[in-house]
């Protein structure tokens, strides 16, 4: 179980797992133990912001990804959300459980709600472009502040 940084705005608490890296868009990247691969999913703020997931469609195994290009799409009651790939790489595994239970993305975004496993094109180079948990927390905080200002 990872530890978390957290912040509360009104009745909502947003958590950032401290054992992984993040793209600025809110996709987490968790290196797999004893493996060059990484697991990816949605950060807590992103899943709360988008709402209850009705459908999650991840591109198939074997798809080559460019960082920033779409690697998955989630459909919530609020919107269709294209998720940008956090790194250059290839999809090697997809979380099949999301077909029947996409709500795992909402209920357990850092564990059971994972989306895919990627093989990075060049991990050391890719990881340098990602944010550490504290840096992502600052990004998230700004996003929350913007949401509140929009009220």
């Amino acid at each position, binding site marked *: 179980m990872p530890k978390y940084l957290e912040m509360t705005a009104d009745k909502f608490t947003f958590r950032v797992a401290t054992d992984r890296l993040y793209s600025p868009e809110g996709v987490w990247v968790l290196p797999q133990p004893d493996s060059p691969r990484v697991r990816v999913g949605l950060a807590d703020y992103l899943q709360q912001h988008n*709402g*209850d997931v*009705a*459908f999650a469609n991840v591109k198939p195994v074997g798809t080559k990804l460019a960082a920033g290009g779409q690697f998955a799409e989630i459909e919530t*009651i609020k919107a269709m959300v294209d998720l940008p790939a956090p790194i250059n790489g290839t999809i090697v595994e997809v979380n099949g459980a999301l077909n029947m239970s996409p*709500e795992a993305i*909402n*209920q357990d975004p850092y564990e059971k709600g994972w989306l895919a496993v990627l093989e990075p094109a060049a991990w050391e180079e890719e990881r340098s472009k990602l944010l550490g948990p504290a840096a992502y927390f600052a990004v998230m905080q700004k996003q929350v502040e913007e949401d509140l200002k929009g009220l």
Partner: protein
Amino acid sequence: MKPGGETVVVVPCSGIGKTFGSVSREAAYDLCEVLRPGSTRLVALAKLVLGEPVARELVAKHPAVTIDGCKQMCAAKMVRESGGTVAREVAVLDVFRRHKDLKPEGIAELNEAGRQLARVLAEEVAESLEGKGGASRG
């Protein structure tokens, strides 16, 4: 679900934070007021949880259909915790997944698609009250 004749208690979540909560509420009204007024009783979840005797007795005596707006499944969870038997638990999200074209919007005021989704949900439950199956989820 047992064949017709037995009263079924209907417990929606009516969650105020999401459009699906409004769908759960309207579906319960469609079911209890329009489709099966003679064989259903609507029970307010909060009354049940807080121990109101009539609500408790109804849930103790009759099987329940719960309608939840989100996957937290508050109505199903709390009916069980109150000693009730959930014969069918319905998640509005699952019904929406089968009827993607009926995308609900609005909480205070449901859009037309939301009202239709509520009616579709109510009709599915009403059909199952005609003895088509046992305890089920949908």
